């Protein structure tokens, strides 16, 4: 029964391997990719419902008992994240059908996408820190290749920055793992949570905590470690940017959440929460100020990712159950809304032939429905009720007020205003104002000639994600219930430890 924990990792692997066997059959690649993602979404939903009904599931790989073997654990947090990632993977599979050119498809675009999903799911499900490192590397190497696939000079230049900074953070991760093993003698997360409070030699624990904060800070694009993100995320095709924007930074946030609520909660690491609070304020502010200054849609959205990460870090650094639940809800809301905005920017580019907001306009006049589809995630991101962002921000700010961090709440609210401002900027420039190129504007020839089926494939993911944003907003309660349960599990590690070490596998 517990074997289902492995499925979200094994399925993309099998799909990818199967695709490589049929290298020249692109049509098969497309179908396998979409079917694989859909099946993964199904499996992860089953996993979530099992975890919801039966508590935390754990699997000891190869029958080696924890803490000696590698453990995979699906608690509420992990399974929610896996569902979110499979969902984004599925929509990206659809969007890729409409946008990815055949040359990229021939060079293993779809297998890489599957391997990326495997790395992400593995990182969410593993219960072992060294194994987490391995999944991070799986995720990184496939993201490297997806980033440079196509080989345009701009992509290569962005990739240099992305690759260098991420490899640097991996080596910090490795060093932290080594020191932690030397200090605690185990790398199993549950075992660590149990053993760290009882350790005798504690001198190095704060060093380890800081090293982990730095590595995950780089992955999550936290201030001042985010510079690789705006330098690279606008260079690959939109489908790739979108899945990166939705999922990769969130893996970093997930790791921070896991480490600093379950494993490093002892005295020596308590200062980390203070550091995270301060950094979160800077992350929010710097990200949104960067976004306000941009005119390139993708760059604007890339800077927004950073700003939104700030909210999540702020909430999880507060450490109250409400705040952690808020951070998780925020993360899910953001994954959906942000990916959607990237998809939309791709359509706008296709319609008007430019990323630069100053050179385009008048879309609303000819495509009013597209305007509506844009407003859902844009206003959702800014936090307008009744969309999902309102609840996400409400939870974070309520948690901030409860713990009397008034200054930070003030920053969060100001940043929210600026987020709304920059969303309205896209609206005004791309949709509302007259096209600077005159009546009708330039519509991309390639788009007009595109078959209706491919067009539908581009619009469908946007409709799906927009619906989710609305549903999150209108039926807030059941989703909050899940997030709340996940938060309680995180703050009280007892159940997690029992599930992994209690031998009920």
């Amino acid at each position, binding site marked *: 029964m517990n074997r289902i924990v492995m499925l979200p990792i094994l399925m993309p692997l099998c799909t990818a391997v199967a695709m490589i066997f049929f290298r020249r059959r692109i049509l098969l690649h497309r179908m396998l990719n979409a079917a694989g993602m859909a099946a993964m979404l199904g499996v992860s939903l089953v996993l979530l419902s099992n975890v919801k009904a039966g508590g935390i599931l754990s699997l000891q790989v190869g029958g080696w008992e924890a803490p000696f073997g590698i453990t995979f654990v699906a608690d509420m947090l992990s399974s929610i994240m896996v569902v979110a990632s499979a969902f984004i993977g599925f929509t990206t599979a659809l969007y890729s059908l409409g946008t990815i050119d055949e040359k990229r498809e021939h060079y293993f675009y779809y297998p890489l996408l599957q391997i990326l999903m495997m790395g992400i799911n593995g990182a969410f499900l593993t219960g072992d820190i060294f194994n987490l490192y391995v999944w991070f590397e799986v995720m990184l190497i496939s993201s490297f290749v997806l980033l440079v696939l196509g080989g345009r*000079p701009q992509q290569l230049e962005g990739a240099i920055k992305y690759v260098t900074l991420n490899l640097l953070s991996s080596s910090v991760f490795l060093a932290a*793992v080594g020191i932690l093993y030397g200090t605690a003698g185990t790398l199993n997360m549950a075992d660590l949570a149990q053993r760290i409070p009882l350790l005798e030699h504690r001198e190095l624990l704060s060093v380890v905590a800081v090293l982990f904060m730095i590595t995950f800070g780089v992955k999550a694009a936290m201030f001042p470690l985010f510079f690789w993100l705006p330098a690279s995320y606008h260079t690959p095709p939109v489908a790739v940017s979108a899945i990166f924007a939705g999922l990769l930074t969130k893996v970093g946030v997930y790791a921070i959440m896991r480490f600093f609520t379950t494993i490093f909660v002892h005295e020596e690491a308590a200062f980390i929460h203070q550091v995270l609070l301060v950094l979160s304020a800077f992350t929010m502010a710097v990200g949104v100020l960067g976004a306000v200054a941009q005119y390139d849609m993708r760059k604007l959205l890339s800077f927004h990712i950073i700003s939104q990460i700030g909210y999540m870090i702020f909430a999880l650094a507060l450490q109250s159950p409400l705040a952690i639940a808020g951070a998780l809800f925020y993360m899910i809301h953001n994954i959906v809304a942000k990916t959607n905005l990237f998809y939309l920017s791709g359509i706008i580019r296709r319609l008007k032939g430019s990323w630069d907001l100053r050179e385009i306009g008048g879309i609303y006049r000819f495509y009013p429905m597209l305007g509506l589809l844009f407003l859902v995630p844009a206003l959702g991101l800014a936090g307008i009720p009744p969309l999902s962002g309102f609840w996400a921000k409400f939870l974070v700010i309520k948690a901030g007020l409860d713990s009397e961090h008034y200054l930070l709440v003030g920053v969060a609210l100001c940043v929210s205003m600026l987020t709304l401002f920059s969303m309205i900027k896209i609206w005004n420039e791309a949709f509302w104002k007259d096209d600077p190129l005159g009546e009708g504007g330039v519509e991309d020839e390639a788009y007009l000639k595109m078959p209706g089926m491919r067009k539908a494939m581009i619009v469908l993911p946007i409709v799906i994600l927009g619906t989710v944003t609305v549903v999150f907003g209108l039926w807030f309660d059941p989703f909050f219930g899940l997030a709340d349960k996940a938060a309680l599990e995180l703050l009280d590690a007892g159940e997690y430890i029992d599930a992994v070490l209690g031998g009920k596998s």
Partner: protein
Amino acid sequence: MTFLLAVIVGVLYGAGTYLILRRSLVKVIFGLILLGHAANLMIFTVGRLTKGAPAFVPKGTEALVEPFADPLPQALILTAIVIGFGVQAFTIVLFKRTYQSLGTEDLDRMRSTDELPGEKQ
């Protein structure tokens, strides 16, 4: 021995950090490789060094007897070396392609992705 290894780890970290701060791509990749080695060696060192006592169960006994060398750090390093090898190989190819396609290996001249709005190449 531990002291010597600690010094070597320190030197590798120092040299690696210096190299990745250089503008030349070739030096950056060397820096990344050195940092990877430094991390591996550090795992080895902080995992406690035990000389001449492999982790084998002696004949006639049921369990390991102290002192024995902990095999886990070595397993970790082995995995990390393999991963590092793959990633570094990719990085070298990427850097070479970048050099070919941009015609420069000076990092200071690669700023088109960080341009501010209004500042054209």
